[in-house]
């Protein structure tokens, strides 16, 4: 059973942003990972967990345990979903009959750039963009503070040809997404988003890169609303050399 690596695409990327799913999958394949896609996978359970619905979250998380049992590693292009499994599964299953399983799965789950750099030791995936481009990074909260994903994407992106990274003020400031927070507390979330949009519009770059599709969806939704042409792209798209609209 060893050496099998599972790809957890996440529900948001699977359904809303399938091309990001392909991009991350292709990057992992390109560096030689024997990647499998367990087709019964759905979601890690975070939407319910973040809203306090632990019972419902556990039902979906149990399905996750079923699907991803027996893999050496589980890799996902989302800091947030990886943090849910790494950090909160042991908590969610505390005292539960499947606690040991949850702890095992937690210790084997990685965010994409974390897996590439920390586990595989890869810092150059051989990507290049069609022409010289400047991009700023938005460090998505759960990956950045929850998992310490900060240097990994920077290492990988610095080796993408034709890409220059610039640092953006407030790069680690939350965009205001927070799952249902954006809906239940939409006024506060909207104010946070507005701060983020100002920072992005002021940054001297062609686009912004982030590691979470949910934050990307949130910020791009805001940019679309205010009529800005700037866009946020997922780190996997850039590492796959696919920078749409360039």
């Amino acid at each position: 059973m060893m050496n099998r690596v599972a790809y957890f695409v996440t529900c948001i990327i699977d359904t809303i942003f399938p091309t990001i799913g392909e991009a991350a999958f292709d990057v992992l394949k390109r560096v030689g990972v024997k990647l499998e896609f367990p087709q019964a996978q759905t979601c890690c359970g975070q939407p319910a967990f973040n809203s306090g619905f632990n019972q419902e979250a556990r039902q979906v998380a149990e399905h996750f345990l079923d699907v991803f049992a027996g893999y050496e590693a589980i890799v996902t292009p989302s800091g947030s979903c990886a943090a849910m499994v790494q950090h909160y599964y042991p908590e969610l299953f505390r005292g539960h009959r499947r606690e040991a399983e949850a702890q095992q799965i937690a210790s084997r789950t990685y965010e994409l750039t974390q897996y590439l750099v920390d586990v595989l030791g890869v810092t150059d995936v051989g990507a290049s963009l069609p022409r010289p481009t400047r991009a700023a990074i938005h460090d998505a909260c759960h990956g950045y503070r929850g998992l310490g994903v900060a240097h990994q994407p920077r290492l990988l992106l610095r080796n993408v040809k034709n890409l220059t990274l610039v640092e953006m003020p407030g790069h680690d400031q939350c965009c205001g997404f927070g799952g249902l927070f954006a809906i239940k507390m939409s006024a506060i979330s909207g104010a946070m988003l507005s701060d983020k949009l100002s920072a992005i519009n002021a940054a001297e770059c062609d686009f912004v890169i982030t590691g979470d599709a949910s934050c990307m969806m949130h910020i791009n939704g805001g940019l679309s609303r205010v009529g800005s042409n700037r866009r946020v792209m997922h780190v996997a798209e850039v590492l796959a050399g696919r920078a749409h609209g360039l």
Partner: protein
Amino acid sequence: MDPFSRSVTIALADIQLQTALDRGTTRGVNARIGAMAETTDAAALRHQARLARERALNRLPDLLEQLERNVVANGGHVLWARDAAELNRVILELCQKHSVRRVTKGKSMVTEESELNHALEARGIEVTESDLGEYIIQLAGETPSHIVFPMLHKTKEATARLLHEKLGMPLTDRPEEMTRFVRNVMRRKYLEADMGISGVNFAIAETGTIATVENEGNNRLSTSTPPIHVAVMGVEKVIATWEDYAVLVQLLARSATGQRLSVYNNLMSGPRRPDEPDGPEVFYLVILDNGRSRILATEYAESLACIRCGACLNACPVYQNIGGHAYGWVYPGPIGSIVSPLLLGPTRAPKLPYASSLCGACQAACPVEIAIPDMLLKLRRDLVQAGDPTPGWRIGMKLWAIAFKSPTLYRLGGRLVGWLTRLLAGRKGYLRRLPPPFDGWTTSRDFPAFGAPSFRERYARRVHKT
């Protein structure tokens, strides 16, 4: 609209407040980051400080008894109060006993819990807050909006107008002139006061010493000038050793204001000794529970480790946008969203645990490593168990779980919703409006049409091809 949402709406529309918050929190965050970075080892120190607090909480009743013994040995008196009402009663009795007519106060958050000023004023006792910010707030008839910077919500312009209107200060936009003006007003108050009331930052059990932390000198004046000093502390403020004090007081200064040490760290062990020339003749320490013993027994015990530095407030993007008053009670910001429901009971502050994007900036800023997001999640869980959210959300979550634990339902549901979003989004690829209960999203952002086909369908095709 519920009270919290109403306050948020008002706060977000208040341009002056937004200006003040922006200036203040930015300075606060930068000061802390710089001051923590130049220590010997910020991560190790935060852990050391955390352990100092844990050690104290583990032995809380023993340490309080030791503290009491030592305060008495130093010539002081120790009084206890189970709740806010009893705290006010105890202090009023002291005022009566000593015929107190004028009180000056150093900064104290616990007396905000009991609204002590109102209780004293109702008995005709003049109370003057002596901290510059607290004094201005008192003049304005407001409450503090920040643990360390009580008037963070006020711009200098608004402050000048207030001092002009209430006390006849010539108008100025220079904080230096406003400060000098208040200094002169306050001088008389200290000398005329019959009693000084202060808070407590740390109480060091092994010598019965009360430590306060301040920059202005008002706390020293309030605790040294009047003949009676009453210090008020929550039970959680006691610490075991002077070595623990050394690390905690330094991390407090660095986290709160970016200073290496605050200007005045006052260490008070009982009243003046018979041969000492000045200082209070009588010293009382009042120890307040007010719900803290209840918290100690729960998985929220680590919230009692808080040293009230305010770093989580400055760092929090929610606080940065709504300010302190919107939180509705004494303790604002991320730590307030935990402490308020715990101290008041969950139904008194049902929105606060949700007022966070769980971004973790608070935890990263906390000098004693309090896992604030984790506790917010647990409070949400408790609220759900107590039946808080509307039936609609409850049914929605149940249906969500049924769909998301079944690959078939998940796939079919995804196709259906995806088809709908594409239908409604049209060529631009974005929806301008979502139906309830998701309409909150589209108040300030568009929602993307789902991609087609889904990743799993693309994957299936790829496998099929090879």
